[in-house]
């Protein structure tokens, strides 16, 4: 009985989506979040994107979102539920939603899916990501110039290409700015666990690190850096409440224009499966204000690098670069191709330690 009711609802919902998807009804936009919208970082910025969509389209859209969705089987349930509720387009905003998104999308061919930071697409699944590594290059430069202990700490979440690219980019540019620099990486295996992120930051600092970079979502490492009097960088969101110290700059993800664009495409019926990977140039990655704690010449260099990255005259991965094992990767002047970057699973020469599998 219950099962039958469920199926009936499912059919009705699917039909409703098909029947009213042409503009008579508000376009329904769903978001799946890996953390809480109040994390002050990654999920917060995606939610700002949702709010921008509401702002742009008013009552022509209806938005829904679910927070703290674990990466795995549970994500499929959350997406299915959204699709059954009549969502026309669903943004799944974490790498670990990749396979669940593909699976659910296969079941709902009329619903559009957009998966952030992944690489698997289908007729109704687009992917989008930002070139965070461009921002990491700027951070790496500032970090290399400002460290006094020559030790830079990096709180890494999961060993996926997105995170490894960031570590490599930050290291390469820190090394260029300061040949004596060392990078200490801690893998915390979580996107969001403030206490663990704080403990990791403290462990780095106790081991002599005086610049902390993070690739996790909460602001806890900023607080730990503030207490210890070392430097940090805002991640995913500006985290400006920690400026001017410890946070001396930040990488801001600006998803709003993309989200508005894609929702518009659904409304117009022009939506197609595409792969978007934008950086500083198109404005998907922004560099937060570099505070006065950074010496003026370093700040000028950092801004020059940012401009060069933006107009394409400089690529963050420009040879000569060797892989960690010493084998050649990029020849002098050669730039990395997107394919290699998208699947990056190796450290560059000079970083110690292994990438966990």
């Amino acid at each position: 009985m219950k099962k039958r009711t469920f199926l009936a609802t499912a059919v009705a919902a699917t039909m409703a989506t098909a029947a009213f998807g042409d503009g008579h009804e508000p376009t329904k936009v769903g978001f799946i979040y890996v953390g809480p919208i109040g994390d002050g970082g990654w999920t917060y910025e995606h939610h700002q994107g949702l709010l921008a969509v509401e702002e742009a389209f008013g009552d022509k859209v209806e938005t829904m979102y679910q927070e703290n969705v674990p990466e795995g089987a549970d994500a499929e349930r959350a997406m299915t539920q959204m699709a059954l509720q009549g969502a026309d387009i669903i943004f799944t905003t974490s790498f670990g939603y990749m396979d669940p998104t593909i699976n659910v999308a296969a079941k709902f061919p009329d619903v559009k899916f957009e998966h952030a930071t992944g690489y698997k697409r289908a007729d109704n699944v687009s992917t989008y990501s930002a070139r965070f590594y461009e921002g990491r290059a700027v951070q790496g430069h500032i970090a290399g110039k400002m460290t006094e202990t020559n030790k830079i700490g990096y709180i890494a979440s999961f060993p996926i290409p997105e995170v490894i690219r960031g570590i490599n980019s930050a290291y390469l540019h820190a090394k260029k700015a300061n040949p004596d620099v060392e990078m200490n990486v801690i893998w915390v295996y979580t996107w969001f666990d403030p206490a663990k992120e704080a403990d990791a930051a403290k462990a780095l600092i106790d081991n002599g690190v005086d610049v902390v970079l993070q690739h996790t979502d909460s602001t806890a490492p900023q607080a730990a850096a503030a207490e210890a009097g070392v430097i940090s960088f805002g991640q995913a969101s500006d985290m400006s409440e920690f400026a001017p110290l410890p946070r001396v700059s930040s990488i801001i993800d600006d998803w709003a224009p993309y989200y508005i664009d894609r929702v518009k495409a659904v409304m117009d019926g022009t939506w197609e499966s595409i792969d978007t990977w934008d950086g500083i140039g198109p404005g998907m990655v922004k560099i937060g204000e570099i505070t006065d704690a950074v010496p003026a010449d370093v700040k000028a260099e950092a801004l020059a690098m940012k401009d060069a990255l933006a107009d394409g005259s400089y690529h963050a991965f420009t040879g000569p670069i060797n892989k960690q094992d010493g084998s050649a990767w990029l020849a002098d002047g050669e730039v990395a191709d997107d394919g290699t970057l998208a699947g990056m699973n190796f450290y560059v020469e000079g970083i110690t330690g292994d990438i966990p599998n």
Partner: protein
Amino acid sequence: MDFGSINPVLLIAALLVASTPILLAAIGELVVERSGVLNLGVEGMMIVGAVTGFIVTVETQVPAVGFVAGALGAMVLSLIFGVLTQVFLSNQVATGLGLTLFGLGVSALMGQQYAQMRTPVSPRWEFFGLNETPVLGPILFNQHPVVYLSLFLVAAVWWFLRSTRRGMILRAVGENHDAAHALGYSVIGTRFAAIAFGGACAGLGGAFLSLVIVPQWTDGMTAGRGWIALAIVVFASWKAWRVLLGAYLFGGVSVLQLNLQAAGFAIPVELLSMSPYLITILVLVIISSDRRRASANAPASLGRPFHASG
């Protein structure tokens, strides 16, 4: 052994801090379970303690008041559990799980305006300069007052359960509530007191997270520590000093593995990441296994509803 860049003194000092929230929540839950009540809402109570402690500290600018408020806030939540399970005899497992979900939701609601705010730093005790002592200073004489309070609570609970009349009544209620009732002891009253104590301890642990360890308010910031505390009570076979051992082992190995990574030791990270769970379980299982009646340590009335007519 070469510790590399790891400073053992700083490591131990960090261990004490990192373990305190779990220790507090676990020692509270231990008392609750010894009275025969299974409250699975520890996670929910911790997070409510974290948010109330944080809000009150922001408003009053006095961390000590915030800690008291955190404990009280979680205690109020635990009393909801008490009323539902003790008066209305609802299922303890379901109610406890509900309490966790409710606590996570209500804390997110309460904390909305307070995300990204900062509180005054709660000072550590310095013992008139004893904190300058090499080695022992940073470990023993330069901690946050709540760290000392948590150790005091462990000793107090141990003594209370072992040597006081009320402690024995509480144990009697947990072992056989019908017999305790027949002897004229108030089963419901004892359990209410235990639940409130458990709530206060969990709240204190939560407030320690949001005021000292992190220190700020973020949704869902307990991130499963309440469940670890519950597990530690079971693996500690309901004994106070083993809870201390379990919490410090867990916190210690957690901090140690981060330090080993930071220092660049060539140990697979996967192994390090699971080590806190693995080692804590192993050690507590081993120390519990040499007793024939290890499993008999569980309070006999644990999780069973009591009604005076029964």
